[in-house]
């Protein structure tokens, strides 16, 4: 018996039955195929999709423009410019994420000290125009508003503290 015949024998009597056995095994299991877009996939909580910028319960932005997310971002896709409100609060006048460059690594939400930036579950945001992928602060806040509305509707407990951090009543408030 030469080598070719031995190969043929092996594939017919060993490999094919092994393969078919797997096929038959899976034939009787629950299918794993996602029926997207007919059925919407369900994500784990940790899934990292489109970003959103959060607000406090009074509607003010949480982001203080500290720049740490931009510093942490390996794709260098966050740009911001800072400014100050009349009452002296620092905020981001411009905050942009280039979602085309983003690799959805989540480093930005890891870095943020103010719990201001998160990656949500939204993943359907295609467009024919590259410019549409520069998400401005307003768009990112609108993402949050949508998520927040759903959360309130579903009565899920908020993931983060809702009030702006206040020192407890100071031990001794000092005017000057």
């Amino acid at each position, binding site marked *: 018996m030469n080598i070719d015949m031995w190969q043929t024998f092996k594939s017919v009597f060993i490999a094919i039955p092994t393969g078919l056995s797997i096929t038959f095994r899976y034939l009787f299991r629950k299918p794993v195929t996602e029926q997207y877009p007919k059925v919407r996939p369900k994500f784990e909580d940790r899934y990292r999709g489109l970003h959103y910028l959060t607000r406090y319960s009074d509607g003010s932005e949480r982001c203080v423009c*500290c*720049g740490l997310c931009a510093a942490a971002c390996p794709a260098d896709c966050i740009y911001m410019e*800072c400014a100050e409100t009349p009452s002296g609060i620092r905020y981001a006048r411009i905050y942009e994420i280039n979602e085309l460059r983003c690799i959805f690594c989540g480093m930005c939400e890891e870095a943020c000290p103010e719990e201001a930036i998160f990656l949500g579950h939204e993943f359907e945001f295609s467009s024919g125009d590259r410019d549409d992928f520069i998400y401005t602060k307003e768009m990112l806040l609108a993402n949050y508003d949508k998520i927040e509305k759903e959360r309130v509707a579903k009565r899920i407990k908020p993931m983060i503290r809702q009030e702006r951090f206040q*020192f*407890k009543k*100071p*031990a*001794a408030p000092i005017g000057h």
Partner: protein
Amino acid sequence: MADNITLTIDGKMVEVPPGTLIVEAAQRLGITIPTFCYDERLRSVGACRMCLVEVEKMPKLVASCATPVAPSMVVHTKNDRVIKAREGVLEFLLINHPLDCPTCDKGGECPLQDLTYAHGPAVSRYRENKIRFIEDINQKFDDKPLGPEIILNRNRCIMCYKCVRIVRDLAGEADLGVFKRGAFTNISNLNEVAYADEFSGNTVEYCPVGALLSRSYRYSIREWLLKKATSVCNLCPVGCNMNVEWSAGRVYRHMSRRNREVDDGWLCDRGRYGFDIFSAADRLFKPHIRRGSTLEPCGFDEALIVVSKHLRKIIDQNLGMQVAAVGSPTLSNEEAYAIRHFFDDVIKTPEIDFQTDMAHPVESGIIDLVGLDGAIRDLERDTVFVIVGADPAVEQPVATLLIKKAVSIRNARAIFIGSYDKRLGHFPITNIRIPYGAEGHALEHISNRLENKAASDDIRLNEEALNEIEELARKGERVHIIAGRNFFNHPDRAGFLAAMLRLRKLANARLSILPPQSNFIGVSHFGLFGDVDHSFNKILERIDSGEIKTLFVFGSNPVDEFPDRKFVLDTLKKLEFLVVVAPFMHPTASLAGAVFPQAMLPDYGGTFTNIEGRIQLFEPMSDRPHVAVRPAWGILGEIADLINLGRIWYHDREIRDEIARQLKGMAVLAHMPSDGFLFPFRSQEELETRPVNLKTLPARKNEHSYILQFAQSVHHQGWLTEKSNNLMRISGREAILIHPEDAARDGIVENQAVTVSNSDESITVTARITTHVNRGEALLVNSFTGQPANKLMSRDSSITYVSVKGI
């Protein structure tokens, strides 16, 4: 000298001079002891306890920043006890610290962050409420403005007292103090007077936390996003080294770059906060050419072609003598050299000058004397300063720090002779008040005394002060005579100089004539000096008589600077062609036929020469956001190219190489050392004494006339600093200072708006009434171009008589 002391630090032996502190000794061994409040330039206070080390045989840990070394000391900086102590100190410092790093401007360059990472505890055990200082209950953050520029967040302060020491010991002011006790200790400005002395920015830079903030930088950008270009300050002739910090073509701040020979790490507020002149809203970025009666923006090449066609014609017809060029003392050495060579070799005209602010330009004998005698660092070793007419605290702020140091630490005497009172922080000084223009007479008084001659009785002076100077000079103290801006506009400059030279000889003193503008010495020695025959005043006369038809103006603004506004305006209008290279569309530029936008300091590179003759390099920022701006050599180079004359400079280095080849002793320019190099510009021959012939003192014309004098402030120096919003926020409004008696006679009250007028022109300013000026004299401080003071002057007389009337 006492013997050196040998001690052991972490098992290593080191030998240091007695009096050295333990931190400094450790530094020599390369051991870094963490510190907050220690700064070798300030007196130690031992406030923060971060630098605790163990010294064997001492029961407790000692603060190494306040303990001098002793023989055979054994110091441990890394043992368990020290490490535990550091952790404890940091835990205490952080107890009331708000830890709002994300909003804090210091975040990223904060010693408290760094040292907490390196030595601190990872968690806090403090559970109680933090003490919080609240400025305004409605504000979420607790910042308190101390002055127009400086903001204090008392919660972040770790009480290192650096700011207080900078204010008290360095600037010699009493603006900041420490209030209350214990955990409530806080820094505040005394009596709520706005904190805006001339060195306030240094407290922000050296505060080890984000407690002191600059309004101009606050919340603007993160430190790690800034790129740095090494630079030299261009707003006064001290030439402080600094870093220009920029991002995406915008300059965010100036930070000091310590050069021990020049600034020692300090910057004055003019240099530090003047950075926004660069990005001022009305800065010129496009060339303009005149079409009909209007100036219209155009492309760079278009403007070049217009100018080079004109020059081509002139060269072809050999009419070079009809062309003149004026520069400015703020240009770089390279620009000065390029202008001289272009107009000398290509156009063939000798009419080149830079003193656009003087009707009586400096002669060649004097130009070689301008500058500091010796090095800047030598100032702190002088023991008597006779400051005649000048106000170095305004004109050369950072160099004055050394005078202050000499006065406060070495008990030197500072004696100001002048027609209005000056101050040197709150350090004790003597003001000898003289009538306007009597500087020479006062010096003669002192000289006559030293020679035991009878003094003339033309003016009466403070006898006590004169006796004191005489005594000090006889004792052989190191006397330093300093003249400044006032010397250049003095009605009797020759007499003044001769008197200074005589006193210099008699008292064996040093004599410095400090130039008022940044690169005065550089541009005058590298090519722009035109001597009296070709001075700007003469150029104007030749324009007036029609001999000169084309004028190039580089960087200066004669209409706002020349002490006769009407004359210069009328004359410039007679020109056939005026080319102005300007950073702004100022009144001179708006008369021009062609305007080129001028490059400003980090747009281009080059060198400046400071008062001591140190040539220092500054670099451009590496992305050039402004494509059409060029330094003078860039524009001239391209014009030369267009008229087919070769000689194009593409880079400042090429010009330096050329200077290094051409001028004696300048070979170093080809490879500039990073801390600059000192070149002896001052000639010794000119220091010979000469006969003193004083003019008689100017008299008051009538009872209501005043002699008008001018003073600048630290934050405002003229049309250029006026473009800086930061500086304008700090500097006061213009004011005219008059004596109470005059005010009473003319019915003027404090803060009243008055018109200051000569026979045909007038300006409106606010009156201040003070005894710091003489009777019959008025001092205009902080003049703005909106109320141009040169309207009142005439180039024929160096004395300006005005009348002051209330509105």
